[in-house]
Structures are given as structure tokens and as C-alpha cells.
């Protein structure tokens, strides 16, 4: 009897949970924070501040591919298992942040992590391990980061949602030049011809069909970032994508909403005029 009661209560409890899902947003992601990732898988264990990684700082200079394919960062926060020793050996962040590499005639990138350091070097640690436990210091740093972001964003084509920056237009217009090759990590191969744009049908009548452009995606991602992990892509029409899945972070949702423009900007993808 007791067990039945327990089971019943559990069922009621779960049903309650299911109904309470959704609701108004409790917090708005600011433009400067969109795409930011807090990495703390090892940082907290070792007692240092968590790392605040800003996608926008990196994507203004590099393709997504160099980090997520050539260097091998996972597509989910805290799943790469980055350790200080890895960085010191030249893996992960250390692939570029090694105190030697310089890109596009810029200055040498600071070295990430070291086992020997002086008191002055602490400043360097804080460039990534920036999420101080003390609130005033953390706030001050975030405020500084916002200023840097604003100064950059003002130069870029603006749009609504996400970073408020239309990255696709920025790249097209030559406002940013993406580096797609990192010495010692990338291999140059002749690129494949892009497939022509194609439409993806919709289930709901009245919703414009999607025009998918490989070309727009391969600039940043090449082939390997999406295929075969995110989209198996064997035969067109095999996979059925639903917006429920997408909003839950599958398929397009692996990037869109997190780093690439948000999926709530319907018209960016659903572009084909309704017949």
C-alpha cells in the first residue's frame, strides 16, 4: 500500500514538473555576453578562478573550424577537459596562446598556463581565469570587457539578437578576415565544391521554407564541423528536424542560440516566399 502511494505521489510530482516547464525569461543575455562560456571543470578543483571564454573575441579573427576541428575543442562547455599541462604542451588554448604565435602581423599571443611564474605573471593568468570570487573585482572586469565589446561592435554591421553583430555580413564585407590555418595543427587540403543552396521543407502550412546555404556555413566551418557528428548527411531527407529538437540544442541548435545568431530570428532561415 505504502509503495503504491509513493508511486502515485511520484507520478503526480512528475506531472507537475512537466506542466511547469517554460515561462517568461528570467534574465536577458546581453549582447556582450552572448556566446560566452564559463569553463570551470578543472579550475574550481584546483582552486583558481573559472575561465571566461568569449567567442566573439575569437571569431572575429578565426574560423570556428580551426578551434573545433583542427585543435579539437568539444562543442559543449566543459567537455574538452582542458588542463594546464595540456595548454603548456601546446594543445587546446596553448596551440596559439604560447607566447610565440602571432597572427596577421599582430603582436605575439600571451602564453596560457605555466608551472613557473612570478608575481607579475599573475596578471596574465587573470586574462583568462577572470571570474574572480570577489564580486567587485569581477564586476569591474566585466564592465571593462563590455567597453571593449562596444568599441568593436560599433564598427560592425548591426542586427538584432545574439551579439547584435551580423557576422556573416561582416565577413562578406571584408570587415573581418578569418584565419583558417594554424601551423602545426591544420592541414591544407583542396576544398570541395560547395553544393548549391537547397530548400528544406516545413511541416506547418504557411511557414516559409528554409533556404539552406552550404556556402555561408563552410566559410566558418568547413565540412567536418557538422558532418557527420551533428548531421550525418548521407542522404537528403533522411533526417527529420523539428524545432523542438533545435531549441533543445540538437542539429542547428548546436551553434545557433549559443554562439551563432539565435533561432528565434525566424526569418534568417525561413526565407523562401510562401506560395
Amino acid at each position, binding site marked *: 500500500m505504502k509503495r503504491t502511494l509513493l508511486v502515485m505521489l511520484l507520478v503526480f510530482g512528475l506531472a507537475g514538473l512537466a506542466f511547469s516547464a517554460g515561462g517568461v525569461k528570467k534574465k536577458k543575455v546581453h549582447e556582450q555576453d552572448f556566446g560566452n562560456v564559463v569553463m570551470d571543470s578543472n579550475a574550481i578543483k584546483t582552486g583558481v578562478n573559472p575561465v571566461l571564454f568569449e567567442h566573439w573575441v575569437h571569431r572575429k579573427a578565426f574560423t570556428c573550424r580551426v578551434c573545433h576541428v583542427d585543435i579539437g575543442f568539444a562543442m559543449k562547455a566543459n567537455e574538452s577537459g582542458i588542463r594546464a599541462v595540456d595548454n603548456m604542451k601546446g594543445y587546446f588554448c596553448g596551440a596559439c596562446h604560447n607566447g610565440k604565435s602571432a597572427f596577421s602581423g599582430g603582436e605575439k599571443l600571451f602564453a596560457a598556463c605555466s608551472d613557473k611564474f612570478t608575481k607579475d605573471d599573475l596578471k596574465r593568468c587573470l586574462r583568462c581565469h577572470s571570474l574572480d570570487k570577489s564580486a567587485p573585482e569581477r564586476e569591474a572586469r566585466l564592465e571593462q570587457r563590455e567597453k571593449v565589446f562596444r568599441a568593436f561592435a560599433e564598427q560592425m554591421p548591426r542586427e538584432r539578437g545574439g551579439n547584435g553583430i551580423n557576422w556573416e555580413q561582416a565577413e562578406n564585407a571584408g570587415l573581418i578576415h578569418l584565419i583558417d590555418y594554424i601551423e602545426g595543427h591544420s592541414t591544407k587540403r583542396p576544398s570541395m565544391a560547395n553544393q548549391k543552396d537547397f530548400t528544406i521543407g516545413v511541416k506547418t502550412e504557411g511557414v516559409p521554407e528554409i533556404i539552406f546555404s552550404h556556402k555561408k556555413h563552410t566559410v566558418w566551418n568547413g565540412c567536418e564541423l557538422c558532418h557527420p557528428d551533428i548531421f550525418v548527411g548521407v542522404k537528403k531527407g533522411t533526417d527529420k528536424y523539428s524545432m523542438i529538437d533545435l531549441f533543445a540544442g540538437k542539429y542547428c541548435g548546436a551553434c545557433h542560440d549559443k554562439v551563432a545568431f539565435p533561432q528565434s530570428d525566424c*526569418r534568417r532561415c525561413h526565407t523562401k516566399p510562401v506560395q
Partner: protein
Amino acid sequence: MMRGFIVLLLLLAATEATANFNLPPLPSREEYGTILINRTSTANGQQPVNFSHWQHRAKFTCRVCHGELDFLMKTNATEITERANRSGKFCGACHNGKIAFRHNGNCDKCHNGEIGYSNSKFDGFLFKSAMPMTLAGNGVNWSAGIASGAVKPQTYLKRKSEDMTFDKELLLEAEMSIIPPAIFPHKAHTAWLDCDNCHPDLFNIKKKGTHFSMTEILKGNYCGVCHLTVAFPMDECKRCHPAMRE
């Protein structure tokens, strides 16, 4: 033991049933949709801010503030600060002396702590705009007003949203067999809102499967996010359940 369990079940059923008709009391029509914002005001020695939705929605659609300007849909959730306002965010996007009155010298137009501050202007608005009338809420049929052009609210400030037109009407069967179904018109909503005001946060887009029960709506979920507080209140059953008898 068994008896206790049955009582529990009956109690649950009873609360569900009564909650359905427990509509919250309505403020006067000129005060409907007016809120006092007090996130940090009192703590900083200021009066709470009076904000009347009717004054604003006569000039701007919901999407301008709740999309472009990042106002959240819950009172006191948005991190509005004086500094943010003065740098052109939130209220400051318009209240800058160009579109609407500026900060300096106008503190108590907003920081007055009086919920009825704008009430006296309501009749003037009715007189001037020739809005179609209705029973509850503001006593104004905003939806018919925007359709007829009695109000012409602006749809964006700087960056226009490109939303798709989606006119589909949904037929939502009611939980109780004696209640006729609700008709949901997308068009009446997209006149004011962008897709992302509702999707996927308030309504995911699962066909069948999400049940917007009146109990949940009355708790302020789903339709209740707007239709208890700003959009016409649920006292007007027929506006959603058109086949309902009075």
C-alpha cells in the same frame, strides 16, 4: 490508509476545479496594465516608478520594448539602472528629450510611487483616439483599434525585425466538454508581437502535447503572461471561446 489517499485525491480534484473560475480582481480601466517598478528604487532612496502600459502601447507595439529594448516580461526582472537609462538603454532609448521627455528635471514623472499617476489622462486618450470599446481591462479593444487604424503604434525604433507573416488560426479544444474550443488567431498577435516574444519560451511549438489549462493560465503561465496583466483579461471569455454563451 486507503481512505487518506482518496481524500487527498478528492482535495486535489477540488482545488483544480475551483481554480478554473477564480479570476483575479480587476483594477479600474485606467489603471489596468499599470505597474510600479521597484527593483532598486526604494533601496536607493527613490520612489518606485509608475509605468502605465496603455500610454506606451498607444504609441509603440509590445515588440519595441519587449524585443528591441530587452525589457523582460516580469516586473522587476529587468536590470534597469539610472546609468543604463542615461546611456540610452531601456527607458532611455526614448526618454532622452528627443522622442519622449528626458531625465533631467523630470524625476517625478516616473519616480512618483503612485499607481494612479496617469489615470487622469486616460479619458483624454479615449476622446482623442476614437478607440473601439470593450468590457474589461482598459475597456479598449486594442486589437480592433490597431486593425482599424485608431491607433498606429510604431513597430521599431532603430533596427526593424523581419518577421514572417503567419496568419494561421489554431483551434484549441477545451478541457471540459461543455466549454467550446478557443480560437487562437496568430494575426491579431503578430500585429503587436514578434515570434520570439512567445516562442519558444512561453509556448514551445509542439503540436498537440502542450495543454494550456485554465489553471496554468490563471497562474500566469502561457496566455496568462499577458492576458492577466496587460492584454485583455480573461473575464471576457468570448474573445477566446467565441461560441461561449454569456
